[in-house]
């Protein structure tokens, strides 16, 4: 892998990882995603200008230890991703947190090329982070971290794009054009329209009957409670309810009370 290390020195070299993806996948990415050059610029902008709550300065995109630096530290003396991952594999949670936080905007920029909706990008980022977590034992610290991460991100993003395509081939999203009738009420669900008709009919009852129905049927009060609340006798409430139901039947059958 040593001869590939030079390729990963810069972010602009990342899209050259064509040897990682099959031609079909490349076509897939090329057809769906923003062309890499503009995306790279975007990614660079995004990662350098993105306000990070945890750090006073934005993370630098470091994919391999730069050749001039001493060992496992970058120019600004912060440990690079490779070192952080090595420590994380040994169980250092702080290093792991730093790594995930630094990697996240970068993964987001990769996902941002392929998904338009913010929620899709978020899901893809989660997917990639979960995968990184699940297979973090496959990372070998002697090799550069960048290709490892980008390969995982590309695989997960392609999987998501394929799943999305399959779903879209099966399902049709309902839009305004799919409504069958110009009258909005006609497009309502039949249960809903029945409920609306009932509510409308109750409103058209005489006040006494309406009150009785609301208390006894809709609010499910007992006869005693309803009598106490309304100040009417139990017998009067019973009669009112009986008449109300009769009237409702007529109203819902389209007759005048």
């Amino acid at each position: 892998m040593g001869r590939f290390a030079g390729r990963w020195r810069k972010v602009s070299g990342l899209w050259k990882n064509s040897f990682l993806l099959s031609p079909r996948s490349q076509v897939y990415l090329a057809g769906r995603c923003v062309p890499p050059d503009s995306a790279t610029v975007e990614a660079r902008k995004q990662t350098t200008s993105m306000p990070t709550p945890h750090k006073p300065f934005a993370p630098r995109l470091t994919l391999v230890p730069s050749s001039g630096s001493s060992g496992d530290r970058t120019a600004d003396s912060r440990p690079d991703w490779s070192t952080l991952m090595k420590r994380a594999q040994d169980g250092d949670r702080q290093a792991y947190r730093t790594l995930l936080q630094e990697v996240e905007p970068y993964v987001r920029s990769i996902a941002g090329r392929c998904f338009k909706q913010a929620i899709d990008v978020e899901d893809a980022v989660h997917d990639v982070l979960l995968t990184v977590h699940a297979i973090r034992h496959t990372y070998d610290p002697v090799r550069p971290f960048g290709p490892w991460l980008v390969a995982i991100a590309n695989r997960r993003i392609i999987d998501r794009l394929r799943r999305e395509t399959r779903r879209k081939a099966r399902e049709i999203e309902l839009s305004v054009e799919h409504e069958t009738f110009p009258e909005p009420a006609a497009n309502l669900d039949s249960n809903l329209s029945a409920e609306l008709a009932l509510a409308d009919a109750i409103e058209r009852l005489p006040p006494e009957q309406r009150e009785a129905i609301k208390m006894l049927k809709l609010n499910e009060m007992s006869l005693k409670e309803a009598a106490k609340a309304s100040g009417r006798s139990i017998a009067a409430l019973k009669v009112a309810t009986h008449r109300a139901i009769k009237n409702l039947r007529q109203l819902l059958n389209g007759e005048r009370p």
Partner: protein
Amino acid sequence: MKTPDLIDSLVEAATPVRRLRPPLIRAALWLLLAVIVMGLLAVAHGLRSDIAMQLQQPVFVVGMVGTLATAILAAIASFKLGLPEGSRFWLLLPYPALALWVSTIGYGCLTDWVSIGPDGVRMGEAVRCFATLLLTSVPLSIAMLVMLRHAALLRPTAVSATGGLAIAAMTAFALSLIHDLDATVMILVWNLGSAALIAGLASAYGRSAFSWFASRVMPTIPPQLSR
């Protein structure tokens, strides 16, 4: 779930992990298992009766070398492909050996076309062949699935295709070593047929088998996060 919360849960679940050994070593371990399985089979069943005579024949030797080379190269390729940053060109590694193996079968077919005699192949031999086939391919498949379970999240189809090829070639090697199937048509059916069957099964069901194994053997994803 928001990304910072996700990172919190992942950090919470971050236990120390053992790094994978280099792919060549892991391929060697798998091949060692194959050698053990074949050794046990050879002890239990014995080598084919005419092994000394067969080893004199160049076609047989070349065929065996091709089969073994296919198995070794395909195993290396699948372990290389199982890593996230492994180049997909590793897929091509076993092809030269595969070509050699297939060509010897074809050559044998042309020259020994009429070698099925009246006392050629008995039914009992074919049944024992099938037992050898199962006894070799099943443990090797399970070992391959467990060792490469992380590939479920990366490129299951490519890995299972090369893995299946390795298992198929190893099985064919065991068959030729143990059973004396002189009829070339039978060799063709057993070698190529079983290889095609195993590789086909691996490509068709490799993806789901990998996910099934990964979900059971790889509980590194915290349960509340697995979707």
